[in-house]
Structures are given as C-alpha cells and as structure tokens.
C-alpha cells in the first residue's frame, strides 16, 4: 500500500523537522519497556475483585526539583507552561486523587526545603513514613551539589525502610530537557548509576543494622532495595511514561483487566489496545497483538497519552468548558493503512484501539467495544460488581440482551441491514470476555462474520438506508461539485 495522502506526507515532514534537535528524553527509557509489558499477573487476583483501596504516595526531592509541577500536569490538567505560576510548596501538600473509581491516591507532595526535610525525618517521621505504598524521589539533573542530594536521599530511604519496608521506590531524574539531546543518554546512565550505587550501599548497611538489632523495624531478608529510574521532562511525553509505570502496579484488579483486554483485542482483530484513565490519560492497561508488537515506536503509550491529553485541552479552549471536563467522547480515524478508535469506555476510562484497515472490521469492532464496556464497568462502581465474576453465566446473559438492542438503536445506516448478523457476532465475543477459559477460536471466526454479511466496504451501501429526502441533498452537492467545469 504505497498510497500517499496529505497526512502521511505531513508526517514525513514533521519527522524530518524533529530529527536531530528534538530527540525526546523518552528514548532513554526504552530499556524499561520490557519489564512493564511482561508484568506477570498475580495469581489469586483473577476472580476476586478487590475492594476500593487507598494508596499513600510520597513525592519527595530537593526544593525546586519539579515535584509540584509534574503533579499538576498529570493530575490537574495543567499545561507545561502553566507550571511557571506555581510557588514553592510549604510543608506537605496533601491531595486525594481519585483514580479509576476504586483506587484513591493519597498524594503527599512534600515541600523540599531543607528545614522541612529535617522536620519530616525527625518530628514527623512516623506520620510521614508509615504506610507508604510508593515513594517517588525526584532528582534535579541540573543540581549543583549531587553528593548532598544523595545524602538526603539516603536518610529518606532509611526512614522509609524503618516504617514502610515494602514500599515501591521510583527515581525520577527530572528536567532532562536542560541537557543537550545527544548527551542525555550518557548523563542519565551516569546519574542513575550513582543513585543505584548509593542505594546498594545503603541496603547493605541497613541489612547489617537489622541483623545486629533483631527487634528494630521489620526484618529485611534480601538486602537489595529495588528502585526504578526514569528520565523525565515536563516538556515531552517522558513524564507520562514514568507515571504510567508508577500507577501501573497500584491499579487494582490489573490481571483481570489485562485478561479481558486481551480477549477483546483478539475478538476484534486489533493490533493494539490501550486503556486510559480519564483525567490523567495515563495508560492503565495495554495489550498488543503479535503484529502490534512490531511497531518500532516503543514510546507509543506515553505518546498517545500526551497527544490525547493536549487534544483534550485544545477542545476545552474551543468549547469554553473547564479542562477537567470530559471534552470528547469519540474519535475515529480511518486510512488505507490502519484505523484508530478512541472511545469513552467506562465512566473513568477511555479505550484506544488500533485496527487493521477495513470498513466492516471497523464498524463491528466499534460495536463490540461498546458492548465489552459492560464487562469493565466494575472499574467505576466497585461495590456493585464485586460479586459478578463469581457467576460468569449471569454476566453473559445481560450483555447479550444489550447486544440485540445495540445495532438497531445505534441508528447507523451502515449497520441497519446488518442487524441480523450483529447480535450473533457480538454474543460469542462477549462470551469470550466473561466466561473464563473459553477457547479463542470461536471468537476469531465469529467477529469477522459480521463483515461478510453486513460490511460491504463501500459507503454507498451504507447510506442507502436514509430517506429519499436526503438523496436530493446529495444531488445538490453533486451540482456544486461540477461547477468549475462550466
């Protein structure tokens, strides 16, 4: 398919313009990609949908390193340039971020001035460091006194090990935009190696310490403390990469979501699926087919987060509604090489699906996604759906009913003649989604079946449905089209 449209041409031009100077910080993070994708679903998580939970997230680092800025961009719909307005954080700025309905993040944005830091480590030590789920420690790449930063980091680590030894630790090497693009990789490796060394040294001494005094703190068998480093900048998508990994482990019922996403993806022949949280547009879960995995853009998850979030802000400027509003509910794109749907999936999520080209495939995928959203509805109201997966049969019948009603109420002419084929398509796909361990073959053949019966790819067939009044409108448009020939 060597067809060249305006967009493929524009893409080439933009890529050329970007080459060289504008290398995103994010390229450095590709090493972490593998570990994210291959996160093994935890056993036992499958059937039991967890109750709402709160997670304490500590955001720490030196004063002025950019903690509040990144928080505002991710969770409060700030633009990167808006963060200039932010002043220094005094003491601790506590915010509760509702994430995916049943997960609330208690974000402790800790002001980084030295006086505060000392206070956290002494008087408020228990208060700050107990029950921590995640520690995010931000290093400023532009810092003048790296040794001192590391010393502070070590004392924070020590307090954390004392009160919340199980907490996940993320290291963000921030403001990477200040480093020349060609140096970024080496600077990042160098800095993260120093942090790693420091952590290792601390872990050793901590293990010795706990061995000597058996009663103090909780015992720490393996002496290694695991950390994950990210190079970030608020000016590109690298921030989304880091935060998506941070929240990834916190999302409840992740294995359940991943499993059903995979089933949906297979049923609609998708190349790739991304599930976004609605306010932050962070990727909650992700699935790609074998073909989709071949995509050379390893940073596409955070790219899409970034693109869609700034699009949301553009719409907010247009509609004059607050940025926190939903802004759009549907976006599609069809070209000769691929199709994309971004659709409001559940109340708290958006789903992006990348499909191979084809009109019929697109339409049946759209319907299937709409129906599958029922299965994911528990993401919004945890209590109500908590017991459902225990009785898969009950769950199956309910969506099937919707399936039959679906296509006819859609009022989409393209699907009008397809309505007999519609439900039969959707039913097996749906069953695959809810009944666990269903063989994939049934879905595989079922979903495209809609295409053969209904999906004549030409639009003419689709538009044959509308009334005769509309046909005259088409006529008049034809007239105008011919105009220049006179």
């Amino acid at each position, binding site marked *: 398919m060597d067809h060249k449209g305006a*967009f493929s041409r524009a893409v080439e031009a933009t890529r050329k313009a970007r080459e060289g100077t504008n290398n995103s910080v994010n390229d450095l993070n590709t090493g972490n990609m593998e570990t994210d994708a291959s996160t093994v679903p935890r056993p036992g998580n499958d059937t039991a949908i967890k109750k709402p939970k709160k997670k304490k997230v500590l955001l720490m680092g030196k004063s002025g390193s950019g903690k509040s800025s990144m928080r505002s961009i991710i969770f409060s719909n700030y633009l990167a340039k808006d963060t200039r307005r932010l002043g220094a954080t005094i003491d601790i700025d506590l915010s509760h971020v509702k994430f995916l309905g049943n997960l609330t993040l208690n974000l402790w944005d800790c002001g980084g001035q030295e006086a505060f830091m000392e206070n956290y480590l002494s008087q408020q030590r228990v208060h700050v460091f107990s029950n921590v789920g995640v520690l995010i420690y931000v290093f400023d790449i532009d810092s003048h006194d790296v040794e001192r930063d590391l010393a502070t980091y070590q004392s924070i680590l020590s307090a954390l090990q004392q009160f919340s030894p199980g907490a996940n630790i993320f290291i963000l090497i921030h403001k990477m935009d200040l480093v020349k693009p060609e140096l970024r990789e080496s600077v990042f490796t160098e800095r993260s190696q120093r942090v790693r060394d420091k952590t290792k040294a601390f872990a050793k001494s901590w293990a010795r310490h706990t061995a000597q005094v058996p009663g103090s703190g909780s015992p720490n068998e393996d002496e290694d403390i695991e950390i994950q480093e990210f190079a970030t900048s608020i000016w590109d998508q690298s921030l989304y990469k880091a935060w998506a990994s941070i929240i990834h482990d916190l999302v409840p019922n992740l294995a359940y979501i991943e499993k059903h996403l995979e089933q949906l993806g297979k049923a609609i022949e998708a190349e790739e699926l991304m599930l976004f949280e609605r306010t932050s547009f962070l990727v909650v879960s992700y699935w790609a087919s074998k073909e989709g995995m071949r995509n050379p853009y390893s940073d596409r998850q955070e790219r899409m987060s970034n693109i869609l979030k700034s699009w949301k802000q553009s719409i907010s400027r247009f509609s004059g509604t607050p940025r926190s509003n939903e802004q759009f509910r549907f976006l599609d794109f069809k070209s000769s090489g691929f199709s994309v749907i971004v659709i409001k999936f559940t109340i708290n999520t958006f789903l992006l699906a990348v499909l191979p080209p084809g009109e019929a*495939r697109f339409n049946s995928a759209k319907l299937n996604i709409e129906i599958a959203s029922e299965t994911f509805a528990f993401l919004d109201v945890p209590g109500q759906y908590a017991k459902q997966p225990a009785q898969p049969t009950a769950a199956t019948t309910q969506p099937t009913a919707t399936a039959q009603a679906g296509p006819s109420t859609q009022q989409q002419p393209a699907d009008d003649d397809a309505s007999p084929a519609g439900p039969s398509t959707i039913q097996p796909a749906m069953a695959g989604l809810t009944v666990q361990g269903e063989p994939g073959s049934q879905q595989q053949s079922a979903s495209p079946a809609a295409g053969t019966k209904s999906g004549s790819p030409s639009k003419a067939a689709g538009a044959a449905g509308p009334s005769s009044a509309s046909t005259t409108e088409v006529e008049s448009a034809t007239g105008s089209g011919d105009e220049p020939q006179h």
Partner: protein
Amino acid sequence: MDMGSGRGRSTAIPYISPASLNLTHVYEQNRQRVQKQDGTKAEGGGGPSGQGAARGKPRLLLMGQRRSGKSSISSVVFHKMPPSETLFLESTARVQKESMKSFMDFHVWDFPGQIDVFDTPGYDMDAIFGEIGALIWVIDAQDDYLEAVARLNSTILDLQRQYSNINIEVFIHKVDGLSDDYKLDIQRDITIRIQDELSDHGFENAPVTFHLTSIYNHSIFEAFSKVIQKLIPRLGTLEAMLTSLCRTCRFEKAYLFDVLSKIYIATDSAPVDMASYEICSDYIDVIIDISEVYGTWPRSEEQRRQLEGEPWNMPLEDQISTVWAESCVVISDGNKPIMLREVDTYLALVAIMKEGTHDKMPLVNMNVDVVVKGLIDFFEITKAKGQGIGGVGPPELGQES
C-alpha cells in the same frame, strides 16, 4: 479581489514547464551571475527560469527591519519549528529563497533586514518584483516602529509606480503580550500613517492590508491564510463549493487546509472565528501525530494474509472504503462532531458539524465525497489553465458568487 499574479506581462516568453526545484535554483544562480558579469538586464535571455518558476509559483517576499521576526515567521509557518526555538535563529545574511511544495508551489524569499533593495545596487528589480505574489512587510510592534513605517512607505511608493498590482501585506508582529486595546491602537496608528503618506502622493486604494500577528498563537497562520487566499485563482468558486457543502450537510464551518503549513486556503461564507480555526488546526496535528506512530511502518505479509483470508476473502484494498484518510471526533460539549477528510496529497477538509449529527455520518461522508471530487477537478482545471496559456497571465477574475 485582485488575483492577477502575472498581470501586465506583455513580453512573450517561451513557456518552460515547472522544472524541478534544483533546476530552478541553478537557473536563478546562473542568471544572477550573468547579470553581474555583463551588467545587463537578463530579462530576455535568462528570463525563462524566472517565468517558469513564477507561472505556477507565486512568490512571497518577506521584508522588514532587522530583528522584526521574518525568519522566525518562515521557520514556524513553513518548517514547523516550535516558536520557542526561534530565539536561537541567526540573523539572516543574504536573501533566503525557498520553494514550498504544496497545493500550489510557491516561493518564499526571506530578505535580510539590513539591506534595502532599492538603495543597494546589484538587485534586479524586475527579477524580484516582476512575478511577485505578495510582499509581506513585518513590523515589530514591541519596538519603535516609526522607522519601519517610514521605510515601508518609501517601499510602497517605489512599488506603486512600477508594479502597482503587488499585494502589500503588513504584519504588525509580536503582538502577543500586548493588551487588546493597545494592539488596535498600534494598528490604527500604522494604518493612518501609511494611508496618509500614500494619499499625499496621489495613490488611493492601494492594495495594502494589515494583520496583527504572533508566532506564539495561531494568528500568524491566519494571516498567512489570508495572504495565500488572494493568490488563488478562482477562489470564489472554491468558497462557493464549501458554502454549498455547509448548507447541504448543515455544517457550522468548513475549512480547506494545507496540511503541512496549516494555512487554510478556503472556507465557507460564514464568518471566520479564531476558535474554530484553532480547533481544526489542532485536530490536524492530532491526526498527523497518530499517523506518525501507526501509519509509517510496514505490516507483515503474514498479517496481511490473515486479514485477507477467512472470513473476509477479499484483498485488503477492497475492504477499505476509500484510500483517503477520514476522521471524526465527537466533542462532549453539545455533542458536536468535527469531521476531517483528506482531499489530495496536500489538502484536507475539516468541518465543524451541527450538534448531535454524528449518526448522520455516512450521509455526510457521501456528500463530502462528491465535494472532494469537485475540489480535485477544480485544481486540475485551474492548473491546466495556468500552464496552458504561455505568455499571457492567468485571466483576471471577478468573484464567482
């Protein structure tokens, strides 16, 4: 509206097909060399290159005081440079000539601010202004602009005597950060100074237009759109087609965009508002970004076989409804759809639709298909005319509707 880019050309010049960019540049250089050596006007002998380039390629001249922002403008608009990076642009030492491959090929000539082409010998006025599309004069609104205005005045007077059909577009630039009242005050002041000077010399209704611009928002694209639109032959027909599409499909606003520069080359008759232009332009960005990630790598043969096999049993090319990209977004506020459709290699049609009309999409798409065919025909026809008539410029046009 005055369209005549080549009006008043009487010398018969052999027609040369729009050669490749390189060739044009070589010709251009040769001609200048010949000029320097012989000290003669190269009008007859070396002329063809200029004519060949100009026939299908109007020329935009960027002029103004030094540091007024000319190079920044051309970098942002034609090279997609982020506005913040223009701070690092070096000052322009010599005339930068660039050819824009677009729906209509045009040249952008960026003149260094320190050179006054009228005072400096060695510039061939005919070569510069002979086949011009428009002269864009950039004035820094945040600076003392009296000198700039004085120079502009003398330029306009010089041009009016010899090349009276040149469109003069004044960009009152760097207006970001100025209050709305202050902007209008400046615009009024500059307008009056120029109009007074012109009428003192007996020129009434000179083709001078004023735009308030900044590279930090969409105003520069908007201004360029208006400049380019004046150069399009039979713009009226284009507008009439879009207006009729808007009427039949009940669109609120439709724009025909040049995708790369995000200049709109035509719109329907409804008044243009900044907000609708911005959202359409941002929409194009979104589509470009998505296409970059998913549309640029080749899919495997295995996948293709699978997609063409059971149960579809059709080559992939037959499964798609159109080779041109199309897209639609539904905005939550008022349930308003915006649709986008690729027209040809350079252009895209973007339209803001009436609230709650998303379920009429198939019908709308059919209508759009027809109009798009019409648009493609339109460009075929106008192109053929421009090229077919050798020495005589494109015919003078009135508004179609």
